[in-house]
């Protein structure tokens, strides 16, 4: 039976959402599902990893996994692979996932496929589907050779517990003398209010069409009224209007809300790849030919600087607070 590993990440003492998504997707492949978790708080992850289908957890809780970036993790995973030879290793397409996967690939000569949104297997081996050109085309790649590594995009699967029981836990020590690499001195969390962009039911995003940073509050106001999160295009993030943590798209976050409201955003491929999974899309753009209208359910050809305040007023008039 194929042995499939998931490299699970943690946020604080919780298993990250993307790791639960990947475990859910990996269950469909059949085979034996196991997880690797390397984090000082790893112990608090075992029960949840079991609930999502992992039957064995390789667990390391060395503080070096917090104080250093990627290098000790890659060394530890390399040692595990050499000992247990999994048939496939899945990572989230996160900052940590990419760094660890890249190093691991180089250490052991493993092939890597990135941007993957679906997994399958054929007679010849596992296949990974990735979307390219702004998700206009799907490419299926067959992976072979020693433990192929796959980086899975967020929101490719919907996390669902399998009701699995307590997994077997195998404690792993960081191999002595492992190079530790870059030091993490401090973590700075930018303050945000309202729901998290990745989880929000409603996302209201603004782009360069808002003309100047002072107008961005029009977007924030509507988002607040709808109990939604504020998103942004890269154009305004690069211009310094809003924090990078708000960026939606290829190099930002992937969101799948019930409603995505795009205001003054042209709909460049690199933006839409991060939001086209929304159930419903509303766009406000003054250019009738803006590409964003090709994927919106309701498109308003108009001035966002007028429509947004009118929308806030209309929502209040309807008793929304």
């Amino acid at each position, binding site marked *: 039976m194929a042995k499939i590993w998931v490299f699970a990440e943690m946020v604080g003492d919780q298993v990250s959402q993307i790791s639960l998504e990947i475990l859910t997707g990996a269950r469909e492949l059949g085979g034996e599902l196991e997880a690797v978790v390397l984090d000082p708080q790893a112990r608090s992850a075992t029960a949840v990893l079991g609930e999502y289908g992992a039957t064995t957890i390789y667990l390391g809780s060395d503080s070096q996994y917090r104080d250093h970036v990627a290098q000790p993790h890659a060394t530890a995973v390399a040692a595990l692979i050499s000992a247990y030879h999994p048939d496939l290793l899945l990572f989230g397409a996160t900052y940590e996932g990419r760094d660890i996967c*890249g190093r691991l690939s180089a*250490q052991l000569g493993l092939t890597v496929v*990135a941007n993957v949104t679906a997994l399958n297997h054929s007679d010849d081996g596992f296949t990974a589907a990735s979307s390219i050109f702004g998700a206009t085309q799907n490419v299926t790649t067959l992976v072979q050779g020693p433990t192929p590594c796959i980086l899975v995009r967020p929101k490719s699967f919907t996390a669902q517990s399998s009701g699995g029981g307590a997994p077997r836990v195998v404690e792993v020590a960081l191999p002595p003398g492992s190079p530790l690499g870059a030091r993490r*001195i401090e973590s700075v969390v930018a303050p945000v209010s309202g729901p998290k962009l990745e989880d929000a039911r409603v996302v209201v995003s603004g782009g360069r069409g808002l003309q100047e940073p002072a107008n961005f509050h029009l977007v924030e106001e509507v988002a607040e009224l*709808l109990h939604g999160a504020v998103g942004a295009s890269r154009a305004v993030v690069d211009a310094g209007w809003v924090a990078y943590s708000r960026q939606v798209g290829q190099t930002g976050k992937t969101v799948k809300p019930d409603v995505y409201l795009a205001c003054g955003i042209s709909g460049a491929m690199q933006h839409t790849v991060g939001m086209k999974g929304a159930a419903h899309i509303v766009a406000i753009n003054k250019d009738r030919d803006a590409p964003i209208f090709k994927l919106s*359910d309701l498109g308003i050809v108009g001035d966002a600087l007028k429509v947004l305040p009118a929308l806030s007023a209309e929502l209040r008039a309807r008793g929304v607070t």
Partner: protein
Amino acid sequence: MKIAVFVKQIPDPSGAGALDPATHRLKRAGVEVVLDPGDAYGVEAGLQLADSTGGEVVAISMGGERAVDVIRKAMAMGAGSGLHLCDERLAGADALTTARVLAAGVAHTGAEMVVACTESTDGYTGVVPAAVAELLGWPSLTFAKQLELNGRTARIQRQTPAGHDLVEAELPCVVTVTGGINEPRYPTLKGIMGSKAKPLETLDLAALGLDPGRAEEEIGHQRVVAVEAAPQRQAGRVVEDDGSAAQLIADYLAELKVI
């Protein structure tokens, strides 16, 4: 100090991309090719470090014959020399092989630091810089939105989903920079003229001391077996705002039970 910057020639990202139906590789023939816009940030970051340390930048590119153009462009921006890693057996190279070639290139130049962008705009695997660092045995400072060098210690603000981490490492190291970390300079006319006289070396797999057999085998560990058009969303209503747009949107939100 010598600083290596990675530059890649890619099909113009503002055009519609296409795959060669026979090889399933990115179509490059007959397509406008440019310096990857992400790489311009890496070149600029490298040049700024070189300026402040009295160092020198070498631009390294793996690619076909035409990739010389992006090396020249980096030299026109200010890089002092170029290294072109070119071998027909590298067509369709995967991330691992690319990393092996680039790492061997860096070792050849004697650079003590690599600056690259976080991922290429066409392939978008995003693991090559970390793999290069591993192959060189260097630490890596990735996803930098700010970068400074104090003596032999490089420190970055590393982007995180929630904000940033302060991360540091000693030289030699690999750094990747995000778009927006700086304002890449445009080549001046003088720079463009001067770039033609700057040294540009070309090396193939053998000259890099890499085993073509291994490259071929590793590239073969992944193979595109199908390419299909992804299902696209259908455009819905598009309405000219006549003053009632806010009501229309509110009606729609009510229909969806969002309000």
